């Protein structure tokens, strides 16, 4: 009887808990606080942080409960992440939610979405020189794309052992867009530049153009970077079913139940994958530091490229919109609007910022495809 009780005691969390578990629970509480109280990306941070709590409950050996224990429920949910299935599913929903009209009416601003992706490759170099392998460096660099699903997708292909740290870094920095971006935007622009007003009259975009764009966009981008096909294919499919009225039901499902269900499963399984032994390492700390640097460099590249474009454009653009090229739809576009309206109330930049913001999603998917194509054989 006594042995039975003792064995039960040895299997409880109170007996098995270590300081690492406690640290991870504190980190989970911090993310939960950011999501609930600060309202930073609550739809993502709440499932992730709850998953972190679940993943860091001490479990006895031999019981298939954890995300890495074959046969456990969490293990099967995690397959959606580790096999790169969830990110393309999320992209269908994102595609169905995006309105490409702004992008179609101001195509020149697409280049800002490309410029911000330079941050990915610059961070890749930084990570490489800090001792990470090329595959790991590419996975870390993609955090600068500020696109959680893309970061998870690429990491699942190149460095699956880093998925937990990279996903948490990518999503937490996406949530912290309003904190990270404004100082960098201000640092690289003058007050006069921040006050530039842009013409708000956009060209009327026909339905035909909006229907043709996803097909043309997919073919062009995938021919250049075939590795981006799973992400861009789903993104453009989601957009097409939203534009074609006959498939309205599918679009509603994609931008409603589908994306919600996948977000819950993705968030919980990523959170659960951050087990103390795997997550609390020097490597993770380096990834977090490089991640925020990647984000900052991407923001800087977008802003500086907008300034370079101004040297050639007759109608000047507000360089703040370059910061929206890091994707993080629509948060970074909102931040641009916020910073611009603080400088000059009534300066309406949101719809202009949406162009680099949306093209940033396409750009980061192309960057991921390029990295996968180059490094897949290593």
């Amino acid at each position, binding site marked *: 009887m006594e042995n039975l009780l003792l064995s039960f005691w040895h299997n409880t969390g109170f007996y098995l808990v270590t300081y690492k578990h406690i640290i991870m629970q504190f980190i989970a509480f911090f993310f939960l606080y950011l999501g609930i109280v600060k309202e930073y990306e609550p739809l993502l941070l709440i499932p992730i942080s709850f998953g972190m709590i679940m993943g860091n409950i001490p479990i006895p050996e031999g019981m298939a409960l954890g995300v890495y224990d074959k046969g456990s429920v969490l293990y099967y949910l995690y397959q959606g992440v580790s096999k790169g299935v969830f990110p393309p599913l999320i992209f269908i929903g994102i595609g169905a939610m995006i309105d490409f009209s702004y992008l179609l009416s101001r*195509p020149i601003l697409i*280049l800002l979405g490309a410029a911000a992706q330079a941050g990915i490759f610059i961070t890749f170099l930084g990570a490489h020189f800090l001792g990470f392998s090329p595959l790991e460096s590419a996975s870390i660099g993609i955090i600068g794309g500020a696109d959680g699903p893309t970061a998870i997708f690429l990491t699942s292909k190149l460095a699956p052992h880093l998925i937990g740290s990279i996903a948490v870094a990518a999503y937490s920095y996406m949530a912290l867009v309003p904190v990270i971006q404004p100082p960098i935007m201000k640092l690289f622009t003058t007050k006069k530049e921040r006050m530039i007003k842009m013409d708000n009259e956009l060209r009327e975009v026909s339905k035909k153009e909006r229907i*043709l764009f996803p097909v043309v966009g997919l073919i062009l981008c995938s021919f250049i970077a075939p590795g981006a096909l799973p992400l861009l294919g789903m993104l453009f499919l989601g957009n097409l079913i939203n534009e074609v009225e006959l498939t309205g039901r599918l679009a509603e499902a994609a931008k409603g139940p589908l994306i919600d269900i996948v977000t819950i499963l993705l968030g919980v399984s990523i959170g659960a994958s951050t087990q103390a032994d795997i997550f609390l390492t020097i490597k993770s700390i380096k990834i977090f530091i490089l991640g925020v640097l990647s984000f900052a460099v991407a923001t800087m590249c977008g802003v500086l490229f907008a300034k370079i474009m101004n040297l050639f454009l007759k109608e000047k653009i507000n360089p703040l919109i370059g910061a929206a090229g890091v994707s993080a739809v629509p948060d970074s576009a909102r931040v641009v609007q916020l910073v611009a309206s603080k400088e000059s109330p009534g300066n309406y930049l949101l719809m202009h910022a949406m162009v680099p913001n949306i093209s940033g999603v396409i750009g980061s998917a192309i960057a991921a495809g390029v990295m996968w194509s180059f490094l897949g054989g290593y």
Partner: protein
Amino acid sequence: MDFNPFIFAGYGIIIVFTGMIVLAFAVANIKRIFFLMDKNKMKNVFTSQKNKQLIFISKNKYSEIQDAIKIFGEENIYQHFFLPEFIERLISSGKNNTYELIDIMIKKEIISPDGEGQFLWNLKSGVLKKVLKKVLKK
């Protein structure tokens, strides 16, 4: 094979930029594909006259132009008119996007200056012919 991170990063940036430039170019020209589909407008695609802008007229705009002709009076279509007077009539008849409509009509050369301070309906305009056909049918 030796791995050179600088070459990799350089190629990566160039490819992403190329992809986005190609996409921007395609987006900027996507409207021309529809323009080409309309055989009547084939000639205009290859002429780059500065003032002739590529403007597409949606179905709604056609019916708005139709309304504007009715307000003007189709029986007066050959008469010269003062633009501000016409604008005033459109506004007073409840057209809230009058200036946008006038802008399109000028750019598409549906109405054009007669050189003596007044305007004239351009009866050679394909759009006007199409709209007038509908108006006269009714």
